[in-house]
């Protein structure tokens, strides 16, 4: 197993560090947990241990040179393992490593405790008129020294500036809840950058993370860490059990179809402008939910539950959308998706996925789905085999959009193409029916205006 060692982040403000010493030379055997190199920043010096065992095969950053947080520093791999793919990645900045590079274990921060936690949480509560809460003593001290209250961090209860803050003249930082801060640090969200009038709460951090998620997937960081084995727990365990059960008990068949989403993207561009005022951003996922909901009404065998040798077909469409959350995967359900317009779908999905990430969804909001959509397109995936979410009979996997040359008649044109992967329960229906469903979906994708026509095949 090959590992890419990257520049770890030791503090909130750390953006780059210098490798001061390599304790191993290229070609040497490295044991997991052994000290591998030392990092210096303007604040700290830290030793970093190897996240796994192997041979130090390549060093991108020789001693004395610096690298940005997340940038590749070295590769540890088996003696004869092919690492050419990883070396390619080293030339670009480590941040741009494609997510799908295989054979690398995604690991956490190195075996050091890292962050300095000496900073006191500060509060930035400013009263409506820009008036900053401060104790009389703090005000007096501030006047004496010519320091404005609103330039200060507040360490008093309820975000009040106390004398100590003036004496230390500490610059103002936004206030953040303890949970939000821990989450931000662990997930590498730069909470200092979050624009927020009041105290930053977990939902704010998650929202900021979601905003940048698409931009940063390509830069998944492989940070150095010791390998740890621990039993599956909590959500992971539940997911593992459910997926195994589904895979073992349901005869899955996956069919794929490449579709031309050029027209759909045009429609998206037009409608996004209309909706932008309401703060809603339309994505292809929203369109696909709408389209799938419409198609399911025409193909009820995929809008059905198969359990206990019974098939229940549903008239109403409730679409589950797989949302990846901290440590797992949740599938909140958009109820009555067939009756909602695009704006409503966008809002419902935004609300559900935000709350899914905050773990604020009730069990009821994850139950009752009649079909599931799983989109890995934004992660750069072309096509995959989604596993059915029982008792549903189908799940649609959505791939990424890639511009390709396509023959239209005799002409070659540049078109945006996307692969849809539909897994279905072969007990409940057969390939032809599933294929027809994808055909309907494709017809809507080719011509989104068809969504305006009600019913009738």
């Amino acid at each position, binding site marked *: 197993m090959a590992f890419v060692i990257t520049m770890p982040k030791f503090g909130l403000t750390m953006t780059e560090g210098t490798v001061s010493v390599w304790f191993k030379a290229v070609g040497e055997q490295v044991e997991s947990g052994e000290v591998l190199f030392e990092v210096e920043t303007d604040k700290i010096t830290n030793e970093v241990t190897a996240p796994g065992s192997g041979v130090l095969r390549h060093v991108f950053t020789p001693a004395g040179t610096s690298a940005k947080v997340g940038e590749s520093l070295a590769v540890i791999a088996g003696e004869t393992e092919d690492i050419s793919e990883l070396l390619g990645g080293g030339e670009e900045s480590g941040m741009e490593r494609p997510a799908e590079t295989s054979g690398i274990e995604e690991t956490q921060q190195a075996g050091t405790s890292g962050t300095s936690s000496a900073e006191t949480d500060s509060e930035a509560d400013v009263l409506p008129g820009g008036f900053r809460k401060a104790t009389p003593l703090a005000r007096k001290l501030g006047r004496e020294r010519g320091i404005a209250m609103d330039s200060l961090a507040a360490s008093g209860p309820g975000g009040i500036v106390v004398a100590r803050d003036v004496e230390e003249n500490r610059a103002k930082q936004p206030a953040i809840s*303890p949970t939000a801060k821990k*989450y931000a640090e662990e997930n590498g969200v730069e909470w200092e950058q979050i624009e927020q009038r009041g105290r930053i709460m977990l939902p704010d951090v998650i929202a900021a993370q979601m905003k940048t998620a698409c931009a940063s997937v390509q830069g998944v960081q492989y940070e150095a860490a010791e390998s740890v084995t621990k039993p599956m727990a909590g959500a992971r365990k539940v997911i593992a059990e459910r997926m195994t059960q589904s895979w073992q008990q349901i005869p899955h068949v996956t069919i794929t179809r490449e579709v031309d989403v050029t027209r759909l993207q045009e429609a998206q561009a037009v409608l996004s402008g209309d909706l932008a005022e309401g703060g809603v951003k339309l994505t292809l996922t929203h369109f696909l939910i709408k389209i799938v909901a419409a198609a399911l009404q025409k193909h009820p065998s995929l809008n059905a539950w198969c359990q206990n040798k019974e098939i229940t077909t549903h008239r109403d469409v409730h679409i589950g959308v797989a949302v990846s959350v901290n440590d797992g995967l949740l599938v909140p359900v958009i109820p009555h998706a067939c009756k909602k317009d695009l704006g409503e779908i966008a809002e419902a999905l935004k609300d559900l996925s935000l709350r899914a990430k905050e773990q604020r969804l009730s069990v009821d909001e994850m139950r009752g789905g009649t079909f599931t959509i799983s989109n890995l397109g934004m992660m750069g995936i072309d096509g995959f085999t989604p596993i059915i979410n029982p008792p549903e009979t189908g799940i649609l996997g959505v791939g990424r959009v890639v511009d390709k040359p396509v023959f239209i008649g005799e002409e070659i044109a540049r078109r945006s193409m996307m692969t849809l992967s539909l897994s279905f329960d072969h007990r409940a229906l057969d390939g032809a029916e599933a294929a027809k469903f994808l055909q309907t979906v494709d017809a809507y994708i080719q011509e989104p205006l068809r969504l305006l026509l009600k019913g009738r095949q």
Partner: protein
Amino acid sequence: MKKRLIVIGGGPGGYTAALRASQLGAEVTLIEKGELGGTCLNVGCIPTKSLLESSQVWAKSRQWYPEATAREVPWSSILKRKELAVSQLRKGVQGLLRAGKIKVIKGTASLAGGKTVTVAGEEALSLQADAIILATGSRPSLPPIEGMNLPGVVTSDELLSIQSLPKRLAIIGGGVIGVELATVCSELGVSVHVIEAADRILPNMDTQISQQLKDHLEKQKVVFSLGKKLEKILEKGGGSLELSLSGGESVEADLVLVAVGRAAVLEPLQLERAGVEVVRGKVKVNAYQQTNQPGIYAIGDCASPIMLAHVAMAEGKIAAEHALGLAVEPLNYDLVPQGIYSHPEAAMVGLTSEEARNRGFDIEEGIFPLMASGKALVSGETTGFLKVIADKKYGRLLGIHLLAPHATEMISEASLGLTLEATIDEIIKTVYPHPTIAEGIQEAALAIKGQAIHLP
């Protein structure tokens, strides 16, 4: 011009909305068909808490000073004390509304379409408004079971003012109201039998709370039939009633209290005339308490997923502020504390362990039993525990569950903690006064880390 706002219903939800709207400069009219203060003040929170104070003082005195309390239960004085509290608070609400320049109309209001409200009262009125807030509350619901209309079968409304105490009371429903009134009556020497269809009392609370509270009440001679449904009630003569339960059991009682839930009061409103949508018996609202009709809001028991006075008040504020154009934040129902004023009291905020696991959290629990609390010992109330549930990853507080004297007061600290997204570290850093029961919350948090001081 001032915005005109009509509030229908003068319970805690309605009067809070009215007062908030008047603070914001609206011209407010409040219509109430009965007494100001609604269920909460007249036949809910306040009277039950008054009776509970009385019954506890009586029971403790009996235990501690038997020679001074050898006489009969002073029920009429207990009732008088309750009436006094209610009438004084009602005057208080009246005074607040007057100070807020809110016009109070006595009568039954209904919607007439658009934003017109008609009132049938001493004089018939038709009023126009820019916004309407529906706050008509709830009333006890009676299940469709044979014998519900027999004399001797009552709801909490009647029980709270009953002229003399029965010898044997059967309570249908082991929810909050059932448990609170079982506490009152058993402390006053009534033999109480509680029948509950679920397999535990207080089915929405932490399981350990249900269990320990039940054990405790059993020690006070309350009898429980759990997992049993009432099938019918028959008159047996001599004022005695017989209840047949599923599974063949039968229970005799002189009085039957039906406390199986409450239903929204919607009929007099004639919602259909304004096209206001109803789902599952309640007015349908969004996170800002708006109904499907622009400018019409609904709050409290007639609309809310949680039927509690403080929820009604919080929703009332949201509705008033939203109606008057303020940017408001919706209520986070996960953070609503719930209290049960039994003895010992029970209170919770956040998630139970079960719910937290369902949502995918990997959790840890710390428990501090009151047996280990010095303060509980001197109060002679060592039944109970304090439980802290946190997520393993960040130590984020997910739920706090208390079964202890003053639990309903202590839970506020927990609510604040959860609202601020505190972790167990903040509880651990806080300095708690000693001796208190509250210091046990810190011990429970420390127990998660295996560092509790007063636990072995």
